[in-house]
């Protein structure tokens, strides 16, 4: 009986809309109420970041109007790129429910390695960078080995790594303690000066809207062709237009000053690539699955150990790359590189951006959004000329709030039947 009734649904109904018990959001009001439902049940997405950003920017602008000046914001983008790349690696390990506490040390070590190999030993700069990133990957594979074969919690192994790698950094820097990278070299220019020409930045800002429209239309056509429900074309156009206009306005404002740093372009490029890898490839699906339910992933035939290996290696490689970028930004490789708040900022950025500490939930974009929040706080506090003691306390409080929001949202998701 039941099967007859079910197959009776008219052919015009889309395959995925034949069940009458499910509410489907239609129209603008439907989408808004669906969004509110989602937020209420703890699926916050990037909402906390945007609210946080608005609050932070309002407060700092009212305290010091220079904060929103385009020159300060361009500086902000330079600063974002270095720790942002490290944070992107943190997203990888958090996705599988692990952590890497040594990213700061790895970044410091990578900057020291580039300084030694390039400036002191006379290696070509590209080769030195490659060596630093490869060494980062080696450290990551060591963590993976300890985790996979010896069952050592990543929390402990990377805590040990934090000290060990810091020791290696001090060792190769030797008694001098710091190596200055030559001003005027390509690497330092990249980290301090190079910005996109206006036409490049405007062109790149138009790209997301175009890609969104093209892929969106293709998906709509494919889904319509096989009798699945699809989003409305007009809504798609509106969204693409809105995003393009917003980005172009931001670019126009920033171009009043120096413009968009190439280094920030590299960071965003890496974020977009990682986002694609995490959401649209089998590897990314496996990462999410391992973070959500390791045993289920194993039984589905996923090679769980290789997934952990890839997460740890990627994280350490991103950390090393971030270290090279920050060396370029500071034009030096010193004993202080990668120490202090680098570790915490990178982890905080990923969590504030919406990647869960509990694994299985997150996005590459959380590194981008989160690091903008963190650097906004740092930049605002610097402008207010506050001591680093206060800066640490405030950044620590923000991290605590972010983790509380994550925990509460998770609890709410569980009680509302959303993982």
């Amino acid at each position, binding site marked *: 009986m*039941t*099967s007859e009734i*079910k197959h009776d649904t008219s052919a015009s109904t889309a*395959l*995925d809309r034949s*069940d009458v*018990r*499910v509410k489907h959001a239609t129209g603008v009001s439907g989408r808004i109420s669906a969004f509110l439902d989602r937020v209420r049940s703890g699926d916050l997405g990037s909402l906390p970041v945007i609210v946080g950003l608005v609050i932070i920017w309002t407060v700092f602008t009212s305290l010091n109007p220079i904060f929103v000046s385009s020159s300060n914001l361009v500086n902000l983008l330079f600063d974002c790129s270095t720790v942002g790349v490290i944070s992107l690696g943190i997203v990888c390990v958090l996705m599988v429910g692990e952590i890497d506490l040594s990213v700061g040390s790895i970044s410091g070590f990578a900057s020291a390695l580039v300084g030694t190999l390039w400036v002191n030993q006379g290696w070509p700069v590209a080769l030195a960078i490659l060596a630093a990133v490869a060494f980062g990957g080696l450290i990551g594979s060591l963590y993976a080995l300890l985790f996979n074969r010896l069952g050592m919690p990543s929390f402990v192994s990377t805590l040990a790594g934090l000290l060990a790698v810091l020791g290696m950094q001090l060792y190769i820097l030797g008694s001098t303690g710091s190596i200055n990278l030559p001003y005027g070299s390509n690497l330092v220019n990249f980290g301090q000066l190079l910005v996109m020409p206006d036409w490049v930045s405007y062109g790149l800002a138009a790209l997301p809207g175009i890609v969104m429209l093209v892929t969106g239309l293709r*998906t709509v056509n*494919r*889904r319509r062709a*096989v009798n*699945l429900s699809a989003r409305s074309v007009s809504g798609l156009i509106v969204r693409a237009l809105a995003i393009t206009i917003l980005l172009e306005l931001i670019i126009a404002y920033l171009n009043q000053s120096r413009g968009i740093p190439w280094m920030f372009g590299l960071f965003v490029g890496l974020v977009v690539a990682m986002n694609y890898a995490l959401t*649209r*490839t*089998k*590897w990314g*699906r*496996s990462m*999410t*699955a391992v*973070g*959500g*339910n390791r*045993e*289920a*992933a*194993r*039984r*589905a*035939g*996923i*090679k769980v150990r290789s997934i952990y290996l890839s997460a740890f290696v990627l994280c350490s490689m991103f950390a090393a790359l971030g270290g090279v970028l920050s060396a370029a930004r500071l034009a030096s490789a010193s004993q202080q590189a990668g120490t202090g708040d680098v570790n915490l900022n990178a982890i905080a950025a990923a969590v504030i951006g919406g990647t869960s500490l509990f694994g*299985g*939930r997150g996005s590459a974009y959380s590194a981008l959004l989160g690091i903008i929040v963190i650097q906004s706080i740092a930049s605002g506090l610097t402008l207010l000329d506050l001591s680093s003691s206060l800066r640490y306390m405030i950044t620590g409080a923000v991290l605590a709030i972010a983790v509380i929001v994550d925990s509460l949202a998770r609890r709410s*998701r*569980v009680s509302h*039947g*959303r*993982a």
Partner: protein
Amino acid sequence: MTDTPEGPVSAGELVLSLRGISKHFGAVSALTDIDLDVHAGEVVALVGDNGAGKSTLVKILAGVHQPSSGTITFRGKPVTMPDPSAALTLGIATVFQDLALCENLDVVANIFLGNELNPLQLDEVAMEIRAWTLLNELSARIPSVREAVASLSGGQRQTVAIARSLLLEPKLILLDEPTAALGVAQTAEVLNLIDRVRDRGLAVVMISHNMEDVRAVADRIVVLRLGRNNGVFDPDASNQELVSAITGASNNAVSRRAERRRAEREQIGRGQTQEQRP
């Protein structure tokens, strides 16, 4: 790994054969000297009390555990299954009792987990269609395949798990308590599905506590008791025989009631014959 014969199984082919399978967990012997044969187009029900070793046996067949001793022959060739993917490659699909779904992924992602189409650019549309096709074959009541599995009920999750096991066109399906969490209609659907799977020439091993379900679909009933083989029964075997094989005791509630019923029937029968006599 040994290469296995490809292509469809012929009717009645001996798909799986276990000889002398034992499994120890430390000092505990979960399984001792288990023999089991499963043919194509046959549903074998595995029944036994709690702790009889049913789930352990299924986990060995699924490659989750490795046997301590004994041989597994799959389609005429001895095989070892060091991990679950080896079992999947051979053509053994498993629906575990705890379902093994990722709650943070949606239904489509769960069905295709480990077998995604187009690994470098996931083909979401094709996967969604295949998911709906599988679910419709099961007459599944899944509201949306784009919802996270966390939002589904127990029965819906069972359906998703079964749909997933069918994805790879396996030769042998292992079902661990497939109907335990299902409603009446869904139980009937799953039993229908098991029938359909058998008619397609696949071998099915099913664990169940529910004798009605077992009798409804099984061709043979294999009883395990305390980790050992304890008899093979016809689906026509009486409840009493089965229960005594499962529990190892002939004096229990089922046998007592059956005894009482028979006695009552005989009495009524005698009464009727007496009434007819004059």
